[in-house]
């Protein structure tokens, strides 16, 4: 009798389990890799990202067109009133400039902005990263801010030549220093696992003047985002009976699932200088 006849045939079940063990172990190792150890992945990642942008940018034009058409219809009704509003704003800007001169305060930077189309969205369950079709060739660098007419979207976290990656404010790594418009209360909003679909407001005193419906804007104190950008609306305020801490939920103004176009804004000069000086290391924005 030949040897092969004596041995039982290898079970395909064990084969699949072995393959699964190898794949799962490899996945786990990749997961626990520190960013410094994963540098060797940057080249294949860049290639893959370019391919994704190319494909999604081409295929995604249909929904983008639908969203833009919807936005165009709603903006059309505002066209009649906007010129008046803009004139009013320009007058206020001039007045602000004169008053800052009189008080001896430094003038604020003019915005250096670029429009960009959203050409890809993260495919993970929470989807907190988007790709836009402007990169270093358009002057965009890491740290630029992304916003939309509704409010703050996020910040540019990675830049390639023709596209950039924007980390949304709903990303686990994107806290924003904020101010409540009505009462001036300052705090920080960030994504937490307990509120996967909203933002949580932190560092608020239990007796702070806050109520449901309050509008939250960026305070500009964190070192990245400029002041005054609309972030969201307070949807729930309560005090945790056990920890005596305030639990405040904020719903972002921007509907991130329907973003088609964003405005990329260069960070203010003063913030760049502050960061470069090394004297200011923001732990928030």
């Amino acid at each position, binding site marked *: 009798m030949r040897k092969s006849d004596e041995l039982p045939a290898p079970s395909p079940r064990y084969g699949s389990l072995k393959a*699964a063990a190898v794949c799962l172990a490899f996945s786990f190792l990749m997961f*626990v890799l520190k960013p410094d150890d994963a540098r060797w992945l940057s080249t294949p990642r860049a290639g*893959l990202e370019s391919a994704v942008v190319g*494909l*999604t940018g081409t295929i995604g034009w249909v*929904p983008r067109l639908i969203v833009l058409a919807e936005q165009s219809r709603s903006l059309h009704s505002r066209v009649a009133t906007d010129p008046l509003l803009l004139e009013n704003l320009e007058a206020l800007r001039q007045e602000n400039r004169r008053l800052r001169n009189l008080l001896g305060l430094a003038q604020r930077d003019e915005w250096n902005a670029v429009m960009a189309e959203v050409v890809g969205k993260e*495919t993970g369950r929470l989807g907190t990263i988007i790709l836009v079709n402007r990169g270093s060739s358009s002057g965009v660098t890491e740290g630029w801010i992304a916003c939309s007419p509704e409010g703050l979207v996020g910040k540019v976290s990675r830049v390639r030549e023709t596209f950039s990656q924007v980390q949304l404010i709903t990303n*686990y790594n994107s806290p924003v220093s904020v101010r409540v418009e009505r009462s001036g209360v300052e705090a920080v909003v960030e994504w937490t696992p307990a509120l996967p*679909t909203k933002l949580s407001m932190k560092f608020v005193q239990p007796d702070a003047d806050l109520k449901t419906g309050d509008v939250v804007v960026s305070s500009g104190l964190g070192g990245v985002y400029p002041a005054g950008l609309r972030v969201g609306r307070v949807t729930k305020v309560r005090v945790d009976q056990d920890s005596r801490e305030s639990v405040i939920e904020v719903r972002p103004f921007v509907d991130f699932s329907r973003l088609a176009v964003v405005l990329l804004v260069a960070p203010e000069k003063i913030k760049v200088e502050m960061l470069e000086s090394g004297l200011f290391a923001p732990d928030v924005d």
Partner: protein
Amino acid sequence: MRKEVVVEILTEAGYLLLAFVLQASVVSYFAIGEMKADLILGALVYVSISKRPMHSTIVGFLVGVLQDMGFGGWIGINAFSKCLLALLVSHASRSTFKERYWTQLVLLLSTVMLHDLVYFGFLYGGGVSQIGSALLKVSVGSAVLTALVSPAYDFIIRRVFSLKGPVSRESVTLPREQ
């Protein structure tokens, strides 16, 4: 390698790649709040129910790596969960009557829930209440949407490109009466 095998591999890669591209470009525009269909997972389920466990495991792993690498998040999280799910679905589908639409729906629903359990488990480091909250707020709705959209995707793609179905009804044979 035989020509048919190459064609089959390319067809499957195209089927999954199209799901990936649609997920990254189109699907999020049709999200309802935080709930959105997961076309990639849906397509992976259809591949897994028609292929052997080993084949499905490797495909799940590769799809997960593609997802992880494409968007700069945590590498490995999708690879781990998709690989595990593909293996489970492929094994489970061998002992179920997968030709039935309702069986496919149940498989899709349970796959999304299990996938998210693993995914959020990694993301939240095992915080039970946080995982439960995320499953309720995000996963249940996404599972329903996935179960509705994925069969449509599978049907349309197979019709348009004249592909063989994931489960061939002709191959089902009833045991001969004794």
